[in-house]
């Protein structure tokens, strides 16, 4: 099925990769782990994680899962914190273009496989699609129980009082459940699972999703899964029910509401705006003629505003507050830090 492919890049010497980089035996091993994970929703399956030609922080677990399930006909989308254009997303997309020669896209609807770090797209996923999450720490109980033997036993016995203790501590310290990302869920009323550092805003999208959801943790050597149409419930208390983040204003570029927004700094005088974290969603809406308060003057509505940023997005929006593993990215938004940087920013990538 997956014949060895030759790297298409003409500028390179003729390096021969196996299709999607990993050898067939390794891919079979990973597929077995994936099948087991699908059979036991939410259960962490150990696998023999391989070294990949990129650092762990780049999502080698997700990359290995994608490599193992990728076929020649697949269309791949790669996002990092909602954006198709961060260094990380571009690197992984290029990696698979080079090693597998598959088609890639930024459009959620057109993708058959979506590899993601820190977000689930706003567009509803469909049956037949697979979303692959990059996971840094797969064990949701680690916060209170560092012993691996013990956490395994707790999962085995569905003994999850400890997880509730963590939420209790949150409320005791902050007055509400302050966990805003990697918010623990219970899958099919059995296993408690870490959804990876997506904002809790995305948690409800995991419930009863028509898409297959796969999770890969490279450094920690674990794979887990949520098969299509599986119940996924965010943990909470009766008197402190789970709530997603709400945003006061719509997206400044496309006017979308009910989506996850990133704050963008416009200048050093406190100017800022909120825009869709999902760049494809935002671009699609703008193309459909939707506008926001900061839409460019050429948009349908009279454009009131300066500066008028292009819809292009720089890298590095970090809604989770987790320091990015990318060297030089540092969790800040270098290309958006100043008005100039943003206004001129990377217009070549405008979509």
């Amino acid at each position: 099925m997956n014949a060895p492919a030759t790297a298409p890049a003409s500028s390179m010497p003729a390096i021969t990769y196996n299709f999607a980089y990993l050898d067939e035996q390794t891919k079979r091993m990973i597929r077995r782990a994936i099948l087991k994970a699908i059979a036991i929703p939410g259960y962490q399956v150990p696998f023999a994680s391989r070294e990949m030609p990129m650092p762990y922080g780049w999502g080698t677990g997700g990359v290995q899962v994608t490599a193992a399930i990728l076929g020649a006909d697949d269309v791949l989308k790669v996002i990092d914190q909602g954006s198709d254009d961060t260094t990380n997303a571009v690197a992984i997309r290029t990696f698979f273009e080079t090693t597998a020669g598959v088609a890639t896209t930024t459009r959620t609807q057109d993708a058959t496989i979506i590899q993601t770090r820190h977000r689930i797209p706003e567009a509803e996923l469909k049956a037949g699609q697979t979303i692959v999450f990059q996971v840094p720490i797969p064990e949701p109980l680690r916060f209170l129980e560092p012993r691996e033997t013990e956490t395994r036993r707790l999962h085995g016995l569905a003994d999850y009082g400890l997880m509730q203790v963590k939420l209790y501590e949150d409320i005791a310290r902050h007055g509400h459940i302050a966990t805003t990302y990697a918010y623990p869920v219970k899958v099919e009323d059995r296993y408690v699972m870490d959804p990876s550092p997506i904002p809790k805003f995305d948690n409800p999208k995991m419930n009863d999703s028509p898409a297959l959801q796969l999770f890969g943790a490279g450094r920690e050597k674990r794979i887990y899964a949520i098969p299509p149409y599986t119940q996924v419930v965010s943990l909470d208390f009766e008197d402190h029910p789970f709530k997603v983040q709400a945003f006061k204003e719509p997206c400044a570029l496309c006017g979308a509401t009910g989506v996850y927004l990133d704050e963008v700094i416009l200048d050093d005088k406190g100017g800022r705006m909120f825009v869709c974290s999902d760049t494809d969603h935002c671009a699609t809406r703008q193309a459909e003629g939707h506008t926001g308060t900061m839409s460019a003057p050429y948009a349908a509505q009279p454009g009131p505003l300066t500066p008028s940023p292009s819809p292009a997005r720089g890298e590095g929006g970090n809604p989770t507050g987790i320091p990015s593993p990318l060297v030089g990215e540092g969790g800040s938004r270098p290309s958006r830090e100043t008005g100039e940087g943003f206004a001129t920013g990377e217009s070549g990538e405008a979509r």
Partner: protein
Amino acid sequence: MTTDTPLLTAQGLAKYYGHRLGCRDVDLTLHEGEVLAIVGESGSGKSTLLGLLSTELAPTAGRVAYRMRDGETRDLASLSEAERRLLLRTDWGFVRQHAEQGLRMAVSAGGNVGERLMAVGWRHYGDIRSEATDWLSRVEIAAERIDDDPRTFSGGMRQRLQIARNLVTRPRLVFMDEPTSGLDVSVQARLLDLIRQLVEEFGLAVVIVTHDLAVARLLSHRIMVMKSGRVIEQGLTDQVLDDPREPYTQLLVSSVLAA
């Protein structure tokens, strides 16, 4: 089922660590509301016995049976891991000498007390919190300390917090291994007082390991004296301590008097 049926029975219990004897030939019965002290010098097998009774250690020989809340007496070796854990965190308690082994040091006092409640399915924050507050006051910890973690507590407070954490599910049986040693004398006295009062109020059965005969005298109804892994004398606490039969017990008692 009658309350004459013992709560806990052990027969022919033995534990070897490789070739080294931990304890052997131990038989005992414990009734509801009864306090049994296990005394003996260091290395005599007290903690080993406690570990066997509480299922923390697997016996080399012998068996332990317990009358469950539903009235059925079960051989503890026959419990599934899930049943055993449920027993440990509902109907039993374990108070340890070193609080770090009995508490979650990075979790607030309220979280420590609430953990068992959450483990058995409590999901109402307000209810958990008010139950925790109530238990903190029972063990004389000020309500305003509820969000502090035990690292900020004194030794005596930590032991009292351990007790609250254990008693919150109203267990019928509590194991204690040297709960007062290492504490100042005045702190010890206050803790013993509290334990005695709670034992009475809740009709707790207790197996307490101590090398301090004064502790045994204050708290226990019955006493077992261990030497080199075996029980050499047992009976009502006052009788054994006032009129010890065995030369070894006489020695223990006299050394206490001398101290």
